[in-house]
């Protein structure tokens, strides 16, 4: 139970950051794909710089997760079509709905019931992928 509270707290914090940084705004995503503002690139870029440095530190100093377990820094399966084609599908949706999976939930809380249609679509899309997976190039 204690663990779930920790994840809930991280979620609340994440939601606040997404909302207050406007990364959950359709307008910011549109503006990003028009290369018309540094805002989104700054968010992703600064998170990334700290992320790269931090993960290098974790690896070099062999820092463990809570309870002495290994950090989940798995190598992704090498492939090309899966990431490129899957990524293009995702990008088409990201620009159209103006929200990626995290912000979708943030927007429920922010009082936009219409986003539930987007989430329903995302669940259907996930399910359809599961059905078609064996037939798609990976």
């Amino acid at each position, binding site marked *: 139970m204690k663990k779930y509270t920790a994840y*809930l707290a*991280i*979620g*609340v914090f*994440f*939601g*606040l950051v*997404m909302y207050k*940084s*406007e990364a959950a705004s359709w307008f*910011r995503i549109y503006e990003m794909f*028009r290369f*018309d*503002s540094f*805002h989104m690139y*700054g968010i*992703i870029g*600064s*998170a*990334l710089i700290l*992320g790269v440095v*931090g993960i290098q530190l974790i690896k070099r100093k062999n820092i463990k*997760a*809570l309870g002495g377990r290994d950090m*989940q*820094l798995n190598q*992704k*399966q*090498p492939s090309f079509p*899966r990431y*490129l084609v*899957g990524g*293009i*599908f*995702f*990008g*088409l*949706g*990201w*620009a*159209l*709905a103006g929200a*990626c*999976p995290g912000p*979708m*939930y*943030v927007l429920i*809380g*922010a009082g936009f019931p*219409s*986003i539930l249609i987007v989430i329903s*679509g*995302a*669940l*259907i*899309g996930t*399910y359809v*992928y*599961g*059905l078609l997976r064996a037939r798609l190039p990976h």
Partner: protein
Amino acid sequence: MHWIYEPWPWYVAGPLIALVMFLLLFLGKQFGISANLRTKCAAFGAGKTSDFFDFDWKEERWNLMIVLGAIIGGFLGSTFMTNNGDNSVSISKNTVEELKSEYHFLSAGESYLPEELFAIESLNDFTTIAILLVGGFLVGFGARYAGGCTSGHAISGLSNLQLPSLIAVIGFFIGGLIMIHVFFPLIF
């Protein structure tokens, strides 16, 4: 503490997102939000029709807690952390102009989301429902096909210098640019 009511600048938000990733790593998890959609499909019984969902979803309950928290965070941020309820997003003037003149998104620069797409009244138009549904579908389908979304690839994967994540992020941008520069003029 006044800054907390203003929109947070990128140099505050970016490091805080990195912090979220490190907190999850420390708890033995990987930052990747879209996995919750797969967990939900499994919880709804999709394992009966596809082995992709045939796993013990209860093991993955933590990612449902994250998104439940995100809902609460969105509520707190929009309700208690604004300047007199001002939720408008100050996007660049050029973008506002384009949205108004090309697509008649008159709420550009004045609201958090375009009312033309997300206001309840806009749902009277079937096209709007279709746009939201298709947009969501592409996000869900694409995230699983690519094995991750913005958090899983653009943050976690790239931070861990994964070439697959770089390919995926390039894909995200190809898709986004095609949508906005090719499809938007046809849709709106």
